[in-house]
């Protein structure tokens, strides 16, 4: 980051720690909007990708339709699709551009799905275990 806002540098206790579990487009978009907002306001963002969220970050699938959460129902799904706005991967790219945003793949989920780092979109910085993720956690963890 070149500190666009940015120059309000992240302080201790100012990290947004997100664990993304769900791989549906609505939940990933909500998480990406939180990430952009936090990065814009000078917070560090620490993201851990597990299960279906990790699967959605496969380079060859990232732009495919990942559906919406079950509670949406057919009508809710239509509302979400019609709303438009930028794809969650683009929002995350912008967040990384303006702030300090690290995206880690959960090594357990990588093994479970047989995913290697080469399979993942470059948005993902690395893979790590859960204890390493908590090295950078300095407050509550939000699970989406």
């Amino acid at each position, binding site marked *: 980051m*070149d500190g*666009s*806002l*940015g*120059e*309000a540098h992240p302080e201790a206790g100012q990290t947004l720690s997100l664990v993304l579990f769900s791989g549906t487009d609505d939940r990933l978009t909500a998480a990406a*909007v939180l990430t*952009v*907002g936090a990065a*814009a*306001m*000078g917070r560090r963002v620490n993201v851990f990708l597990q299960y279906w969220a990790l699967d959605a970050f496969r380079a060859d699938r990232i732009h495919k339709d990942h559906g919406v959460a079950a509670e949406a129902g057919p009508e809710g799904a239509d509302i979400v699709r019609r*709303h*438009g*706005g*930028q794809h969650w991967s683009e*929002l995350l790219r*912008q967040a990384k551009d*303006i702030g300090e945003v690290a995206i880690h793949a959960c090594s357990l989920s990588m093994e479970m799905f047989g995913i290697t780092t080469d399979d993942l979109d470059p948005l993902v910085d690395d893979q790590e275990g859960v204890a390493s993720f908590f090295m950078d956690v300095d407050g509550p963890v939000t699970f989406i």
Partner: protein
Amino acid sequence: MPGVTHIDRSIDARGLPCPGPLMSLIGAIREGQVGDVIEILSSDQGTKTDLPAWIHKAGHELIEVEEADGFARFVVRKAR
């Protein structure tokens, strides 16, 4: 007085959903020079609170906010 400030750059972000207008402003601030005055139009409701919050946090100056029919106009000076 509204409308008499010299504008260096104008951005029409009407129609963009949150956080589009904020990201447009951040981009323009990054590209601009200190002292530049940027005008941005937005129809997104969240922008009404988000732009002032970001401008304050990032240390720039909100010169003007003007409500129009269905959108708002913000005038910002890049302060650093």
